[in-house]
């Protein structure tokens, strides 16, 4: 219940942003929501099931291209977004069947190459996808301000939906089973948890919202190309955000998204050429010193306060 109240209050507060913020702030908030979706999605497979997926970039690009191609064929935007989500979901389910028997590093590497594979497919099919030239999307005939508001609300709604799904899943039998798989997959199987279908479900959950986010992103920026939407950083950032916020927690991903975004805006803008190195540095520091995320620091302090009372 506490989770639902937190989610609704935060979302409602964010929803009032267009009343006070300028377009720059609105753009940042849209990216924040998009990041929150990517991180929350990764948390299903990486945080709950304990499978370090690097397939986020693949899902994002697949969603973006599916929606872009469909819209260029004349499908209405919203319908194209939904279809992109569905396509990504089915793709992840099929892909999961192929690579989820791998564990640890092997799974990570297998999931990493999926985006590269899709990128090559796009590059070699210029008739359908525009290839390396990229693909233009229909432009909405509304003012710039109205567009900014529109895509902000789209991303916010998606982040809301994704987090709501997380709240439901974490308390469900699926979430319980996934946590068991994360801690000890053999033991979970022995007790009758169908590890294979549970992992596939988690992997699909980690894909569907990312696919829709990619589709919204494509409509938002009006033009996509392979290096943009299959960017490897799209696969790395969710992991960083979740580690920052707290692995396997409901609001950790959103908090991590906020921290990463602030980091990007205030620091990386001054160190443009080495920002990827900075990202690597964060991962190393996090894994070494704060494997449970920044939230765990707060929680420890809180627990100590309560203990002192």
């Amino acid at each position, binding site marked *: 219940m506490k989770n639902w109240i937190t989610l609704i209050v935060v979302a409602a507060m964010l929803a009032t942003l267009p009343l006070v913020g300028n377009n720059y702030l609105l753009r940042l908030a849209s990216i924040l929501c998009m990041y929150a979706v990517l991180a929350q999605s990764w948390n299903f497979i990486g945080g709950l099931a304990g499978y370090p997926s690097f397939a986020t970039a693949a899902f994002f690009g697949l969603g973006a291209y599916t929606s872009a191609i469909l819209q260029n064929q004349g499908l209405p935007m919203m319908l194209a977004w939904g279809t992109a989500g569905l396509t990504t979901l089915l793709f992840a389910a099929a892909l999961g069947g192929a690579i989820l028997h791998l564990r640890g590093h092997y799974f990570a590497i297998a999931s990493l190459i999926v985006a590269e594979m899709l990128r090559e497919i796009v590059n070699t099919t210029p008739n359908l996808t525009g290839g390396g030239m990229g693909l233009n999307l229909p432009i909405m005939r509304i003012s710039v301000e109205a567009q900014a508001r529109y895509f902000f609300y789209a991303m916010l709604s998606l982040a809301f939906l994704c987090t709501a799904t997380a709240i439901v899943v974490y308390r469900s039998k699926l979430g319980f089973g996934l*946590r068991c798989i994360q801690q*000890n997959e*053999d*033991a979970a*199987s*022995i*007790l*009758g948890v169908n590890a294979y279908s549970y992992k596939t479900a988690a992997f699909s959950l980690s894909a569907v919202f990312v696919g829709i986010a990619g589709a919204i992103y494509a409509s938002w920026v009006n033009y996509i190309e392979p290096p943009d939407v299959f960017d490897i950083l799209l696969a790395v950032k969710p992991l960083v955000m979740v580690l920052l916020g707290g692995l396997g927690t409901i609001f950790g991903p959103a908090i991590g998204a906020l921290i990463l975004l602030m980091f990007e805006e205030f620091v990386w803008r001054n160190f443009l050429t080495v920002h990827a190195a900075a990202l690597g540095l964060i991962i190393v520091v996090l894994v070494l010193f704060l494997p449970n995320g920044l939230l765990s620091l707060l929680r420890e302090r809180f627990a100590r306060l309560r203990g002192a009372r």
Partner: protein
Amino acid sequence: MAPRKLAVANLQAGYGDVQVLWDVTMEVGPGELVSIIGSNGAGKTTLMRCISGLLVPTAGSIEVDDKVMTQAAPANFVRAGIAHVPEGRRLFSAMSIRDNLLMGAYLRRDKAGIAVDLERVYAMFPILAERRWQDAGTLSGGEQQMCAIGRGLMASPSLLLIDELSLGLAPRVVELLSESLRAVNKSGVAILLVEQDVMNALELADRAYVIDHGRVTMSGPAMSLANDPAIREAYMGLA
């Protein structure tokens, strides 16, 4: 023919190109306590993994209550009344003892029955009741084994598979666990016990199988095996 809880016939299994089990045939009757003894790497754990569906055998058959289960998934073995207490305990170390025990009842729907069985496990191992809210990872080795056995019992099995009861545990703890297993067995649950500690295994069991290099080399009543000169020399270091 007498009814059999578990019947394994001509089982062959392995990992990749390495064949571990060769033509293993054995059975467990209802309520029986059977031991499988053998040295390290003899294939005992592999046999257990086949009997709980974790490993699909390459040939041969596994029947539970006269139903063929050779290709069945682990969940179906649990539903058929087989609970596996794996080697090395395999607890969910970041989850509470109570949650670990409740996970054992994962496939059950009868809330009342689960509550009754939970109390029964707590009564059998009072230390688990005392520490029910503690993380399983904080338990000592012996307590972890209690938790693992308790988790197995929570599935309400008619056959409990126990892989390495005594490994790494103090003799006093092994004694206590053995007593508990006897009590479980008396209550009607069949037990298939894999042990390296041959003396203890033969003391507990009604019957036993000796596995060597993936083959059953001897079998019979535990008492007569315990007195067999070959066994005494090979496994107990006694002449």
